[in-house]
């Protein structure tokens, strides 16, 4: 199951001390993301082909020694992104 962010041309982002405010053209809504969610979104934006939760976890874990169950941390964030319209599940075919 791959996840993809909304087309990044439709997102406006501004970072303040690790937190991220995001405006989504598709919904017209603005959101505040905590540092973890911000990283997840940024990582998705940088991978337009889509990422699985495991791949996301691997990228976030790069350079961090502490073990963490990244999936458990990331899943709720991805669900929330879907609810907010910031990301969606992609089929395994490449995005059109």
């Amino acid at each position, binding site marked *: 199951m791959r996840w993809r962010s909304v087309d990044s041309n439709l997102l406006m982002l501004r970072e303040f001390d690790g937190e991220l405010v995001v405006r989504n*053209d*598709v*919904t*017209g809504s603005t959101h505040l993301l905590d540092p973890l969610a911000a990283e997840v979104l940024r990582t998705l934006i940088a991978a337009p082909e889509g990422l699985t939760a495991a791949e996301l976890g691997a990228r976030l874990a790069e350079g961090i020694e502490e073990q963490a169950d990244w999936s458990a941390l990331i899943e709720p964030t991805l669900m929330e992104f879907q609810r907010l319209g910031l990301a969606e599940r992609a089929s395994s075919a490449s995005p059109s």
Partner: protein
Amino acid sequence: MTSPLIAALRDPAAVRSWSVPQWERLIRQARSADLLSRLAHLLAETAIPPGPRRHLVAAQVTAGAQAEAVQREVAHVARALASTGVDVILLKGAAYLLAGLPVSRGRVFNDVDILVPREALPRVEAALMLHGWAGSHHHPHDQRYYREWMHELPPLRHLARESVLDVHHAIAPLTGRFRPDSAKLIAAARALEGQPRLKVLAPVDMVLHAAAHLFLNEELTHGLRDLADLDALLRDFAREASFWSALEERAHELDLSLPLQYALRYCARLLATPVPEQYLKDSIPVWKRGLLDALYLRALQPHHPDASDRFTPLARALLYLRGHWLRLPPHLLLYHLTVKALRKRPEEPLTQGR
């Protein structure tokens, strides 16, 4: 017609020499007629004194936001109806906007209107409900009015977004005197670039729909705004040489010649739309022409104390009744008006703007 708003719509350049009181009346009338942003668009290249200018700028901000909201709403509707296999035809503002027509610039947008075949209504309604739209007008009488007698579902409101969607299956009431064939409209509809399941009416049909909406509807609250739409559509489509004859022919085919005549007549009279002379000859008998002029030329003025005379309320009331009459046969009309009068309306808070 001395309304500054109509004068400015006819000849935007003329405002350059206007006095302060004229500007004031213009801004007030335009605001009350929902034409402030259209005026801003027409005056984009004109030097405007700072006082009036801020009001035009403010109106443009609002209109821009509404246009974006309509784009979003149309995307939602398209997604919701994708699985039904129905071709959705956008009407009015949403159509003008998505087709990129000049009439959409500076236009105020509210609800989204769509046209679907009548037999598709049940599955369209079901798909919309599934995606969060809910019906309004729950009184059984209103439901009947809309579904059986008029040409639309009662307006649907999206529960989360609070936007309103009007689903039509015809462009004029089933029970009215004029019954243009929806199948013909649907057959002639044009696809929108990059939008697989969305269509808009053919240009002549857009004009005829606008004319039918203005001259067959019961309320003229936005009469001038609707007339301004017609003016913009006509000016744009008339660039095609064959347009006028095609328009006349199609009106005849759809039995909408009468509303078209009224539309051309009042566009030319009030907004100086360049309608070729031969299409202004009318078959309206002279005696009737005078009466209609007395009614419409007053009722199409901006709804503003400035632009009315003592006959205007009566003119509007008569046209309201006439509009209703055109939509419902007399015995049904009486029934409908009586029920409307007897039912208690819940107290609505007066809200500003839209």
